[in-house]
């Protein structure tokens, strides 16, 4: 550690250069940078510059605090990682030492220099420029107080799968109101479709339905199924959410859920959602017997009365007169302080993988179809049979990674398919005794008790073949292949191409973001990654928050994951929300615009620029005013004001212009010969 004292300027600035172990120091000569700052920036007010192994450690922070107190620092510049990581850390350190936290500036020489450049000399020079920019900028910082926003105690949870159920219950159990919105007629999500859950093989319904019932009966939960969020306004602490409650054509107060209408409805439809296209439902239906709520919905598109004007069988036979064909969609508006998105996933459309023949070859099934096939409450009552509905397969091939880890489809690993495929192998062995082949690229069984399950499936007698299946065909070529589906694959461990005739093929298709994920994310003011999953605030340290304050994400909406992780995220998001609610308010960055009325010429150029309606024009005085409660701090009006009457905190014109000058410190005096690096 080195220390250099410079002379005193108007402000007394301390510069702290972090090594971040070797993350920064490996590429940037941090000692030279600190030395340079003390020497060359002292005329700008730098009185001390230090480098230290880990500035964010308690010792590093103490260093800053000590200097503030002993050297009377009035400004602090820390050159380390991204402000999105440690800005708060150093602000709090300043505050502890009695300096207003907003007089601290964190500049990023790790993400913006050491990690992205290989030329050490150039990276070191760039780090100097970045620090110079920070020093120029910090001079113009003003002491500020955070904005305090009250938190509305209610929470909106979007999506009634296991993630949303978990989150809703945690918050409701803590005594706060929850609105749970689900677009299907029942909560339960994908988990309700499954028969067994790995690795313990508990029955999915047995562990899920009690929670569904709790949601349905919880006094703190307002359950809105067959509903969708249409619009979200406002900001953390106080969102106004508009929800469309689609017409069910059932009077919920009268319906007892007896099921007579479903029994009597003459119209049978393939159930593409809950039964994954493998079973049927009626035009009036609950997706499954344990549905929550118990009220059915009438599917307008398929209802004979709605389409042809006659029938009304359900109405005639309903014992409580609960059918109401006149119902219309309702729009509800609710106030909430926080939002949890748990919108789940879709599965990849297996028809896209032409070489596996799904949709063309009858006995190729998707994983979701297989879940329904093996589910005791499914279309075959749990009989694992071929598409003809009766024949038990003698041999089954299960194909892992169908459409995952493949640049032609989804480049990512879907995380659950290995275990899911092994679960299928176990079920087939257990229920039919059929020969089972699993075709895999790699077996990824990384969570608790997962690898033990893999071994159990091996012990069950499943045959595992390492090789990604090339094609599934019904074109028989060799004896024994007639009438079978043939799986052609390179057995990579044997180094030979093999053709394996089977009766049934199950594709472990990958998980995909919901088809409308981007649209939904946009509605909530957050964004999706290139793959389409919702982006979390930090992939490791803040996995359930998003970049928009007050909007959290849980479960597969954020990326493929298994049930344990999904439940953990649902609970984690709830914990984050509860912490907020219990503090009653939240401190926000005081980045706001304000108008200096004495400078405002009343030109009204700024008036049309604010999408949040924070700009008000006073006709009487011919001046503009900004409502700080509505202003979000984007700064567009600041940039537009020709009179310079609008200023924005934290990003004032002075701060930005000074930073530009600082960043170009070396360029302004660019000499023909390169400056020798300070030693």
């Amino acid at each position, binding site marked *: 550690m080195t220390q250099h004292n410079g002379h005193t300027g108007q402000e007394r600035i301390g510069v702290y250069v972090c090594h971040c172990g070797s993350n920064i120091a490996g590429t940037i000569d941090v000692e030279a940078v600190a030395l340079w700052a003390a020497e060359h920036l002292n005329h700008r007010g730098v009185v001390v510059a230090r480098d230290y192994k880990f500035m964010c450690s308690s010792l590093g922070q103490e260093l800053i605090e000590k200097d503030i107190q002993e050297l009377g620092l009035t400004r602090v510049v820390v050159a380390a990682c991204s402000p999105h990581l440690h800005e708060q850390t150093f602000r709090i350190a300043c505050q502890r030492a009695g300096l207003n936290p907003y007089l601290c500036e964190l500049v990023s020489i790790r*993400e913006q220099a050491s990690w992205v450049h290989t030329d050490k000399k150039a990276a070191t020079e*760039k780090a100097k420029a970045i620090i110079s920019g920070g020093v120029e900028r910090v001079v113009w910082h003003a002491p500020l107080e955070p904005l305090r926003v009250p938190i509305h105690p209610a929470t909106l949870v979007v999506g009634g799968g296991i993630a949303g159920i978990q989150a809703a219950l945690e918050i409701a159990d803590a005594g706060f109101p929850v609105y749970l919105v689900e677009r299907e007629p029942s909560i339960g999500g994908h988990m309700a479709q499954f028969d067994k859950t790995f690795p313990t093989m508990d029955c999915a319904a047995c562990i899920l339905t009690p929670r569904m019932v709790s949601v349905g009966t919880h006094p703190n939960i307002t359950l809105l199924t067959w509903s969708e969020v249409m619009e979200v306004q406002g900001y953390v602490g106080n969102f106004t959410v508009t929800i469309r409650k689609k017409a069910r054509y059932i009077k919920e107060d009268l319906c007892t859920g007896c099921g007579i209408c479903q029994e009597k409805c003459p119209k049978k439809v393939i159930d593409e959602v809950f039964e994954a296209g493998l079973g049927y439902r009626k035009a009036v239906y609950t997706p499954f017997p344990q549905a929550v709520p118990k009220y059915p919905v009438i599917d307008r598109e398929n209802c004979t009365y709605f389409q042809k004007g006659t029938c009304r069988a359900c109405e005639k036979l309903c014992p409580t007169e609960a059918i109401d064909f006149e119902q219309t969609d309702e729009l509800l508006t609710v106030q909430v302080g926080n939002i949890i998105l748990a919108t789940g996933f879709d599965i990849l459309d297996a028809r896209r993988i032409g070489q596996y023949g799904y949709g063309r070859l009858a006995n190729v099934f998707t994983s979701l179809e297989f879940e329904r096939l093996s589910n005791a409450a499914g279309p075959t009552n749990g009989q694992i049979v071929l598409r003809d509905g009766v024949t038990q397969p003698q041999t089954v091939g299960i194909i892992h990674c169908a459409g995952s880890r493949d640049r032609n489809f989804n480049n990512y690993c879907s995380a659950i398919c290995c275990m899911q495929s092994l679960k299928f192998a176990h079920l087939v062995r257990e229920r039919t005794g059929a020969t089972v082949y699993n075709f895999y690229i790699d077996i990824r069984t990384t969570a608790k008790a997962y690898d033990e399950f893999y071994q159990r499936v091996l012990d069950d007698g499943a045959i595992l073949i390492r090789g990604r299946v090339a094609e599934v065909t019904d074109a028989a070529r060799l004896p024994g292949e007639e009438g079978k589906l043939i799986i052609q694959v390179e057995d990579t461990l044997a180094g030979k191409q093999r053709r394996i005739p089977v009766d049934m093929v199950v594709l472990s298709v990958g998980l995909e973001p919901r088809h409308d994920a981007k649209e939904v994310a946009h509605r909530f003011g957050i964004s999706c990654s290139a793959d389409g999953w919702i982006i979390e605030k930090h992939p490791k340290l803040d996995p359930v928050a998003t970049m928009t304050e007050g909007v959290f994400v849980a479960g597969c909406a954020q990326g493929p994951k298994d049930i344990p992780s999904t439940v953990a995220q649902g609970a984690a998001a709830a914990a984050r929300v509860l912490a907020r609610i219990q503090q009653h308010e939240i401190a926000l960055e005081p980045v706001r615009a304000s108008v200096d009325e004495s400078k405002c010429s009343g030109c009204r150029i700024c008036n049309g620029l604010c999408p949040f309606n924070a700009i008000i024009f006073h006709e009487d005085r011919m001046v503009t005013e900004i409502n700080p409660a509505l202003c979000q701090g984007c700064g567009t009006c600041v*940039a537009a004001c020709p009179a310079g009457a609008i200023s*924005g905190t934290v990003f004032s014109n002075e701060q930005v*212009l000074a930073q530009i000058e600082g960043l170009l410190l070396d360029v302004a005096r660019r000499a023909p010969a390169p400056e020798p690096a300070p030693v």
Partner: protein
Amino acid sequence: MSDSFEPILIGFTCNWCSYRAADLAGTARVKYPPNIRLLRLMCSGRLDPTFVLKALASGADGVLITGCHPGECHYLEQNYKALRRYLLLRRMLAQMGIEPERVKLVWASAAEGVKLAQEITDMVEEIRALGPLNWPQRHNGAAPHADEKAVKEGTA
């Protein structure tokens, strides 16, 4: 390093998308040339054209403006305002005799670290090909090579 021209660029980034894309490029160790120095704004809508002129006048050879993709602005629609200002700015630069290609606007979401790095790499090469700007010299008497071509392109 040889004594060939090494351009210096200033990059304006949006707090919600491109600044995070730069963070992501760092975390993922994506490499780009060290010729750019980034500066954070809350939104590309905050970009006062004066900032660009200030950067060029202070010795930068080019300016890269980055913001959220159309339709994805954290403040709903302010990036469109940035786009409008950018188009005007290019026109103005052309009239001042500065190649409008020295200023470029690109969209980069928080997920597009690789894209941002590629845009930076491309732009550094483009500015290298254009040569140094030398704003002060140009404006101190020497005939600014304001030509019709530059004016035309600025209006495009």
